[in-house]
């Protein structure tokens, strides 16, 4: 059954007609030609299709396009330039993944990066994780165990985890330093 919908993707509105069965992942890849979100399993089990939906990380493969009209969708491709990058326009996480060699085939990478963007926001908002020693702690300290748990929805078939965790930790800790600096400046 066809319906006409509007999707806002990486800052641009697109008007398109889709079958109601179309997921956000298929709409992005097959209809809008944005192949940065990947299809790994199509069942919610791998995280390759991760995008940002209204600033939160979400799976494109289980979200129906008709149910998310009007949402602000950001893909890994849209993080370029949008992330306050220097010169090359890459998002700090994208640059950190390159610097840390945090991939082999790269298939899981756009999902890993979108997931990490959402994860860092969740941690900054004080959301606990399943490995939190104290669920009531006011602040989250992103050590390697926390990062691994929070990123467990993103599988990497090449098992680049040993470099993915440091790539994310690097940006997380830079953000923490920046936050402390801002705090200091306000005092």
């Amino acid at each position, binding site marked *: *059954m066809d*319906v006409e919908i509007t999707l806002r993707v990486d800052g641009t509105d697109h008007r398109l007609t889709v*079958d*109601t*069965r179309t*997921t956000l992942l298929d709409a992005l890849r097959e209809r809008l030609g944005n192949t940065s979100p990947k299809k790994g399993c*199509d*069942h*919610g089990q791998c*995280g390759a299709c*991760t995008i940002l*939906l209204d600033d*939160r*990380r*979400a*799976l494109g493969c*289980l*979200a*129906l396009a*008709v*149910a998310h009209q009007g949402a602000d969708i950001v893909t890994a491709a849209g993080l370029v330039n949008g992330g306050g990058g220097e010169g090359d326009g890459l998002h700090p996480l994208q640059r950190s993944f390159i610097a840390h060699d945090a991939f082999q085939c790269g298939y899981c990478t756009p999902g890993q990066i979108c*997931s990490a963007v*959402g*994860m860092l926001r*969740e941690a900054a*908002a*004080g*959301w*606990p*994780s*399943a490995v*939190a020693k104290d*669920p*009531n702690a006011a602040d989250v300290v992103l050590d390697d165990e926390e990062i*691994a*748990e*929070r*990123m*467990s*929805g*993103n599988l990497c078939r090449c098992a680049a985890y040993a470099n993915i965790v440091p790539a994310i930790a690097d940006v997380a800790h830079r953000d923490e330093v920046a936050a402390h600096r801002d705090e200091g400046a306000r005092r």
Partner: protein
Amino acid sequence: MKPFRYEHADTVAAAVTALAEEPEAAYLAGGTNLVDLMRLDVATPEVLIDVRRLTSDRIEELPDGSLRIGAAVPNSDLAADRRIRRRYPVLSQAVLSGASGQLRNLATTGGNLLQRTRCAYFQNVTTPCNKREPGSGCSALEGYQRDMAILGASPSCVATHPSDMAVALAALDATVCVQGAEGGQGPDGELRIPLTELHRLPGDSPERDTVLRRGELITAVELPPPDFTATSRYRKVRDRASYAFALVSVAAALDVADGGTVRDVRIALGGVAHKPWRAWKAEESLRGAPATWDSFRDAAAAELAQAEPLPGNAFKMALARNTVVATLLDLMEAAR
């Protein structure tokens, strides 16, 4: 996937009526379970009625100190809520131990409660399964049993309920608020069902997961005012460290008097039954007993005396017993 119409309803009453009138309609919330099952051809609705904007996405405090969690509250917001974390940490931990960050952002409170079993035969339309196709037989009886039930199962179905959140809610004496197709007693015709009575045991009709009748819509879940639930914990055992369903899980809250006897306790088990399993017998055995390793082990044994493990999941007996003991010991430690 079978073609379907996508619709919104303006009011709860309209949604309930729409479902009553369309035999092949289903409610859609986050879609993380339903869309998956539709892709597998296990669910074949012809109409989807999106209910995310129909129910509340807020957690409200009621005058008596209860918390009312709207059915559309995302799993991630529930787990992050400061009141939940302080008063009912077991609930926050249970939600966080389930699925992944990306899934918890989409998944809702109502959808989580009504997610279907992860039994591999249920999800595979080429294998017999009484839950999917009543009367076709249960493939798990002679098949893969690692994930199956040890408590309350029947020869028709040995599946387990997969929700972690529901196990914590069972331990917390939560109430499910439902807008009924007919016959609600509360204000606005609201039906109130204790969470421990929402899900069914399979008996000879495993196709019915819950006591809800067709068209009934979950609007909220209420938590009673906190008592000793601030000392509560969720412990989940699974085949990998994260992003996997429970083999066995335990939600518990413990209140120990100064003299070292158990004043009160709440225990519920996950991964062991067709429903979140409130361990009433273990609780009864513990009230008034000394809070010791021996009493904890005896309490677990009292509960598991009624268990009937299958050849492929007998390991769950020791696993359940040890996880109950470990969780209660953790709580002793936390209270110190």
